[in-house]
């Protein structure tokens, strides 16, 4: 069973000619089939955790370990991490001018699966996945993220999630900027992947709204660069009622 183990992870970032520690000892284990919600106030380091796991060059790992099925993730390049089974749905997906969605998806699937998918089944697979996400077929011919609305960008991220079938999916604020309809469509996509039972999901969010659609097994409160409280789904209800105030004033050293 696939397991992502994060132990005492410390991460710094260079900003304004100074080194700033953002993650201050994160411990978390995500197993296949489980869904973990990481919730926290702005600036608590949630997104840094997501991007550090994916290997973004902006972040420097200064301590700790990350293992995926016992393999050292931190030793892997960005593409190796993806091929090992890590997937990051980004909060702000990047435009890639001149590269069509269909070309991008096929290139990516070829890399992840280790061989080019058979054209006929692939076209069908993409078409059906797009239909489920209410995406117009013309979408495939557009350039990656170019001129996409916020909702289109997120649906495109979840389309990739469905096609690439990772072992561990990190969803970085996938709910931000979505209206209720788009949130429902995107959540249904995530749930289809979860129902396979083959993915561990790390759902990073500021709001409890998405948790009405995607039920977490575990909820963690993130503040000051670490997890300050963990519990079941009921913890989200408490946050819904009380907000993050208790954590930012007492628990978190820096917001």
């Amino acid at each position, binding site marked *: 069973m696939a397991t992502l183990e994060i132990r005492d992870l410390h991460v710094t970032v260079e900003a304004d000619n100074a080194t700033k520690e953002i993650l201050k000892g994160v411990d978390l284990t995500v197993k296949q089939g489980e869904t973990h919600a990481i919730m926290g106030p702005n600036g608590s380091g949630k997104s840094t955790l997501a991007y550090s796991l994916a290997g973004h060059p902006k972040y420097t790992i200064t301590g700790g370990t990350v293992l995926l099925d016992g393999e050292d993730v931190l030793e892997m390049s*960005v*593409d190796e991490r993806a*091929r090992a089974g890590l*997937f990051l749905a980004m909060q702000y997906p*990047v435009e890639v*001018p001149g*590269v069509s969605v269909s070309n991008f998806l096929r290139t990516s699937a070829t*890399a992840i699966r280790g061989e080019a998918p058979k054209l006929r089944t692939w076209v069908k697979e993409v078409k059906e996945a797009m239909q489920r996400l209410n995406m117009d077929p013309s979408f495939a011919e557009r350039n990656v993220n170019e001129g996409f609305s916020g909702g289109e960008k997120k649906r495109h991220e979840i389309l990739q999630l469905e096609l690439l079938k990772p072992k561990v999916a990190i969803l970085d604020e996938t709910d931000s900027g979505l209206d209720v309809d788009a949130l429902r469509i995107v959540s249904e996509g995530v749930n289809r992947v979860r129902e396979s039972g083959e993915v561990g999901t790390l759902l990073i969010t500021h709001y409890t709204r998405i948790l009405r659609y995607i039920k977490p097994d575990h909820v963690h409160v993130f503040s000051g660069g670490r997890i300050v409280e963990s519990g079941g789904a009921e913890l989200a209800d408490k946050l819904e009622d009380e907000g993050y105030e208790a954590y930012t004033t007492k628990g978190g050293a820096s917001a």
Partner: protein
Amino acid sequence: MAEAQNSPVGSTTAGAIAVAAESTVATRMSAPPSFDVADFPVPHGREEEWRFTPLERLRGLHDGTAVATGEGVKTAVEAPEGVGVELVGRDDARIGRGGVPADRVAAQAHSAFELASVVTVPKETVLTEPIRITVHGEGGVAYGHQVVELGAFAEAVVVIDHTGDAVLAANVDYILGDGAKLTVVSVQDWDDKAVHVGQHNALVGRDATFKSVVVTFGGDLVRLHPRVAYAGPGGEAQLFGLYFTDAGQHQEHRLLVDHNTPHCTSNVVYKGALQGQDAHAVWIGDVLIEARAEGTDTYEMNRNLVLTDGARVDSVPNLEIETGEIVGAGHASTTGRFDDEQLFYLMARGIPEKDARRLVVRGFFAELVQQIGVPDIEERLLAKIAEELEASVA
């Protein structure tokens, strides 16, 4: 490209229009345009129009020492039925109507060529197949002249391919009758040692549409000078260019759009990628809006993607406006390194770095190629770009 990685050297001037008292486009040249090479002094390298060009690599084209040899280039024209294809002498009246040589090498070419190739599409003839002109270098020195003339309301696509090895100075005239539509694709796919200098003169008729696509991959030194002027109102010019400058290559594109007539439009987009030690790309984009050219709408853009250290770009957009009564005028120039965020996004989807880089560079060009509007040419160029990337981006 991420903003932080761009160093803009130009900016849009729409809304902030400077009115020039005297055209610097004309005065900064070392001599006024002329058909006679003797009217131009031999350049020494400090002249405004020559300061980016390594004169020693022109192999004598600029100082009269390059003498035409018998086996310079072989030119062949393949045209659909109904198109006139002729070789004519120097005194033919159709030569030189597109424009006057603006620098010494263009004048040298005009003074030295023996026969000109003239391709004529009669009025109202709409071609469904392209006209193909191949210029193959046979290793010698050559001077040439090509004329492409479209009668009123004629429509044609012309593809000019340059291959092989040569030292060539050649001018091209494109004459568009009223309402004519011409798309011309000039591909410089020379061998490594070739030297190619030329001036392209387009004269765009009333309500005519001119689209030029200049594609430069090869050669030791390529210096092209595409120029557009209008013969009547309502003319449209689109000047697209793409270049892939490798180690040691000098590729220079100097454009002039002369808005000499009211209510005409121009859109210039040149994109280049550079890699390797001493790869040097030069882009000069001059747009002149003359006092009488009311209602002009123009935009010009140059973007460069520098893939490695050791490459150099000189990009100089220049917009000169003599009337404020225009629809729009703007320019932009950016030279950037690889966008790390694009690379991260693609790699985060499992795509290895080398493939991701190729995808981004291919995309950088594809964005422009997609605007050409001639599917088989688009495919051919994308295949050529893929081939170039296969050989180089690692």
